[in-house]
């Protein structure tokens, strides 16, 4: 067995022991820390990331994220929620960023919902809007699959033509249409960050075909695809990155925009979980 798999199984064993669910959930949601829509969930149990062995994931500081065993209020859906993620820009390696994804898969997860805060490059997009991500460009210069490939996790050269499952995407689109909520189909650009983008970079990123950008979703999606799970992804648009009208980022404004998007997203959660 590869070292990678050993570490995964160690995490799996601990999480299984602590799990309050009889049947392991088939859905996982991964989001940045403390998004407001998480209040919609009843948390049955939570595990702090540093408590999950073998805890080999070491970034620039202690990760305050938690793995939540949760159910959506007023619904029968059980799911696993990663409240907070391992970001490449915090100093985690790509393999470390991908570790929780493989762990979720070994726990029985079949579908992963990724939620990220994004900046938008497309001039037709708007603050507080929701990006439906249907494809990505990896400009992080790295990939969690580089290195030895464990065939029990996935194939050497995963095909990326359905990286964001198109059937799921169609269903999600219908939910937005039924609820008459505007959405923004998006190509997500993955870059390392954490510094924000220059005007020239924004122009370049738009030119190569991206609509929104962020620092975290791409390696997670690559691991999701590698481990044959399905992926749906959403971006909460919190800052404008349109080159010709770029202004200095106002952190408060950004938080306000993000919360606005989260508020729009919250009532859709139930519908979205029901189609997975």
């Amino acid at each position: 067995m590869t070292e990678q798999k050993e570490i995964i199984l160690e995490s799996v064993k601990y999480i299984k022991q602590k799990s309050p669910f009889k049947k392991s959930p088939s859905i996982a949601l991964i989001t940045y820390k403390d998004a407001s829509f998480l209040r919609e969930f009843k948390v049955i149990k939570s595990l702090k990331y540093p408590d999950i062995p073998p805890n080999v994931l070491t970034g620039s500081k202690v990760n305050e994220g938690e793995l939540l065993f949760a159910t959506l209020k007023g619904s029968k859906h059980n799911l696993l929620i990663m409240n907070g993620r391992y970001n490449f820009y915090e100093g985690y390696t790509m393999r470390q960023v991908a570790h929780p994804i493989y762990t979720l898969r070994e726990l029985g997860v079949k579908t992963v919902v990724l939620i990220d805060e994004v900046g938008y490059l497309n001039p037709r997009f708007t603050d507080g809007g929701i990006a439906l991500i249907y494809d990505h460009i990896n400009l992080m210069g790295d990939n969690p699959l580089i290195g030895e490939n464990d065939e029990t996790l996935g194939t050497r050269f995963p095909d990326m033509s359905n990286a964001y499952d198109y059937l799921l995407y169609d269903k999600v689109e219908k939910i937005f249409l039924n609820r008459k909520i505007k959405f923004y189909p998006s190509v997500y650009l993955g870059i390392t960050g954490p510094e924000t983008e220059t005007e020239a970079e924004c122009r370049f990123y738009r030119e190569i075909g991206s609509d929104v950008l962020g620092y975290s979703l791409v390696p997670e999606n690559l691991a999701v695809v590698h481990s044959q799970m399905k992926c749906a992804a959403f971006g909460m648009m919190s800052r404008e990155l349109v080159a010709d009208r770029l202004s200095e980022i106002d952190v408060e404004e950004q938080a306000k925009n993000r919360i606005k998007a989260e508020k729009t997203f919250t009532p859709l959660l139930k519908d979205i979980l029901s189609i997975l």
Partner: protein
Amino acid sequence: MPSIFTRLDESLEYINNKINSFKPQIGIILGTGLGGLVKDVNIQYSLAYSSIPHFPVSTVEFHHGNLIFGSISGKNAVIMQGRFHYYEGYSMEEVTYPIRVMHKLGANTLLVSNACGAVNPLFKRGDLMIMRDHINFLFDTPIKRNHPKIKNQQVYNRELIDIAEVTALENEIPVRKGVYCSLTGPTLETRAEYRMVRKLGGDVVGMSTIPEALLSGFFGFKVLGFSIITDLGFPDTLKPAVIEEIIETAAQAEPKLTLLMKKIIEKLLNE
């Protein structure tokens, strides 16, 4: 670990002991579709990578790992049977270590091949393409230290490209010419990525060759690269890639690439 120069000296000492002052003129990397060329080589020495001190070891299942010394079309060559890919986790230094060995042995020409996906809509599965230029999207380079003078403006040698084109015409083998863009992989590209590569001026996408071409170009090698188009990366009609199909396409293209390469080597000047 000892410095790269010490390690190189040790590798060379071992190799020179084994090959009795054999002097290769050409370095060849048997990438995809070129594996059969070895049948045309009058092999004099074959050293397993694992036997050479400090040499990296190839992991990919369908690759052998041998450094072969012999003559082909009348030229002395050092041939890599099995190569090192960046996506396998090797550092740039490891990927290009054999190039340093070839350089020390006195080779001054590099012939290399690879498999790639086409983003140029004129290209077809099974086509051969002469690498006219490249775009390095590996976010890394083998040329980092102790290299004050970089002379990589024309990595892919114009004379060799001309010879390759003429030779292809003479033998009635259709060839394309284009820009090879390398991404790290090993995941295949998304639609958005194929679209990006096309927009940036790439004709094909692959995951290899650029590190070796860069370093050998830096050493003053004349580099000639061939790509076999084994799959199509047209974003608007993208179909899931089937690895077996890719391998099959490469195998079908192999005889014409092998023949072409042999004829090209015949035309190289004895130096």
